[in-house]
């Protein structure tokens, strides 16, 4: 589904990613872990196509297509979703209205008509239930005055609405208490299928108790320096990142 080859990327001439190789197949859950400043969020932004990041070398293939030249929204239309670490506020635009726009823009890109209001409402109700979201929440302005937990839950709600092929969860666990974490993780698990894939980016292993990865990769200094199974995550939790750094620098 996603194939990254020797990816180099920089922001404002500062090189951040220095040769990433990663392949994610449908049905798989991958986790990327690593110390602060290792390039985790940059990788997420580059896959999503954020303009500030310049790909200086390497390729990103999504379902066999080189997506490097595609605009952010075109990647989204293809089924790439990014759950943001810091979701932005859009005052005056309700969650419902935002989702309606997102879904219909995606449908338009695929040559489909707008989703009928009745179907839209049904979908919203369904997904809100799945994520234990109060309906009142949906008429509030997007992320405005939301608590950290509400923001993250709203991200996963959007993911549920858009049904992406590849969902990238960037530090979705940060700022969540244990109950919110459980709800969010349950939501992700319910949405998982053999046809879609999840890339979890996290600093701590705690989220991985709930969203169990098939593969764990350690990102350090712009490179994946170690890959393994979920056992690797436990090892990191126990020993921290220093031994990895030492291994790399040795």
């Amino acid at each position, binding site marked *: 589904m996603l194939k990254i080859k020797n990816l180099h990327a920089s922001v404002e001439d500062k090189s951040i990613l220095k040769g990433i190789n990663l392949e994610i197949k449908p049905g798989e859950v991958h986790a990327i872990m690593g110390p602060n400043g290792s390039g985790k969020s940059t990788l997420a932004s580059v896959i999503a196509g954020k*303009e500030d990041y310049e790909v200086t070398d390497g390729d990103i293939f999504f379902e066999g297509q080189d997506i490097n030249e595609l605009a952010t929204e075109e990647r989204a239309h293809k089924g790439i979703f990014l759950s943001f670490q810091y979701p932005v506020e*859009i005052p005056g635009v309700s969650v419902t209205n935002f989702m309606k*726009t997102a879904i219909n823009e995606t449908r338009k890109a695929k040559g489909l008509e707008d989703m009928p209001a009745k179907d839209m409402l049904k979908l919203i109700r369904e997904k809100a239930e799945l994520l234990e979201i109060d309906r009142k929440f949906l008429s509030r302005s997007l992320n405005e005055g939301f608590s950290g937990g509400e923001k993250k839950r709203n991200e996963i709600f959007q993911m549920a609405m858009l049904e992406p092929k590849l969902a990238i969860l960037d530090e979705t666990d940060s700022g969540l208490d244990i109950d919110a974490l459980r709800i969010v993780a349950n939501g992700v698990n319910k949405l998982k299928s053999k046809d879609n894939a999840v890339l979890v980016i996290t600093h701590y292993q705690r989220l991985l108790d709930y969203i169990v990865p098939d593969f764990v990769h350690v990102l350090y200094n712009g490179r994946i320096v170690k890959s393994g199974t979920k056992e690797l995550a436990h090892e990191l939790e126990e020993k921290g990142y220093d031994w990895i750094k030492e291994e790399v620098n040795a």
Partner: protein
Amino acid sequence: MNKYTEDDLREELKTKEYEYGFYTDIESDTFPVGLNEDIVKAISLKKEEPQWMTNWRLEAFKAWKEMTEPEWANVHYVKPDFQAISYYSAPNSKPKYNSLDEVDPELLATFAKLGISIDEQKKLSNVAMDVVVDSVSVATTFKKTLGEKGIIFMSISEAIKEHPELVKKYIGSVVPQKDNFYAALNSAVFSDGSFCYIPKGVHCPMELSTYFRINQAGTGQFERTLVIADEGSYVSYLEGCTAPSRDENQLHAAVVELIALDNAEIKYSTVQNWYPGNAEGKGGVYNFVTKRGLCETNAKISWTQVETGSAVTWKYPSCVLKGDNSVGEFYSIAVTNNYQQADTGTKMIHLGKNTKSTIISKGISAGKSQNSYRGLVKISPNADNTRNFSQCDSLLMGNECGAHTFPYIEAKNKTARIEHEATTSKIGEDQIFYCNQRGISTEKAIALIVNGFSKDVLNKLPMEFAVEAQKLLEISLEGSVG
């Protein structure tokens, strides 16, 4: 001799338009350029006005001659040469085009985006109409309904002839001839406009917009509007049109006077989309408008405006809250793009006791434009227990535009409660990226953010019009980012 090409002709027409400030056409009945007493008299004569009206115009002209163009607004432009304008051009009955195929395709594309019907498009772009049974019969029905309720709705020229007692009593009662430079000019030379009278206790059964839009597409350069809501009556009046107005007249100086007698309510909504000039800031209309309403006891006036057009806007719809317990409201969205300049806001003059006013102003600036809010809240010594709430929000797009807020407060009564809130925000790249990531294009994302920002004001517009205004905001800001 070189061949005289179509391009040469076009070039020549362009220069002509500039020279005379309006579209030259042999069919129209046009006065020579310049302004003096004889011209004022001639306008009045041409319109077959009674002597009192002629005198009224002459008084205004006399005052205007002594006045100077105001310079305090935060706008910069080359002042018009008032002696280079022709002050009377009879409406041309002959259509400009024979079919829509001849109309500028860009204009038609905009109409289509706004969802304006073919018939209305023809009317707006001055295309010969086929026999339109529908709109004619609709108009007739409206006229009948209004007539049955005793509502008078006609052009001000007709009203001067048919209802002189009403016009004489109220014209200039809220905006006196000498009020300001442009109001004085308008009083002297106003071409035409609308007159509306709602009798005592009558609730006008329809938005006067519907009628207005079917019947009057074109407006004059010096428009004059007078709306009188008699005791206990209600009217919702809609002015302007979301369709772009490609008027060749550079200067527009309208006057609108509203009178809400005891317990009456007037809701006045405006959508202004005059030609803003091109992307380089060439051309475009100067819109210098004086709008004011007078509220008697328990009366209420609401101004709602969506301003997207004009190169230069100078406009402060105001309320004089004379009667006790009267209410004034001002809801405004002003959009400026490219090189547009807007200096707009309101004045709330609290004279009566327990009077209340609300001001919600949303300014959106893009391109290299300058957008200013200027507002005055004045509480007179006798106005006990008055309240005002003002909120001025500015939204900036890009780094080259400006947003300015000039709130003035003069409170001479200690019991007054005045609240003022102001915010300035910028459409962030993070917001755009967030929307993009959800599959929403940058253009659409901006529209979404702008609509969210403007929601409080859009909600105040009559339903059908709110939808059009929303689309208009999108179109006005097209191409402003990226």
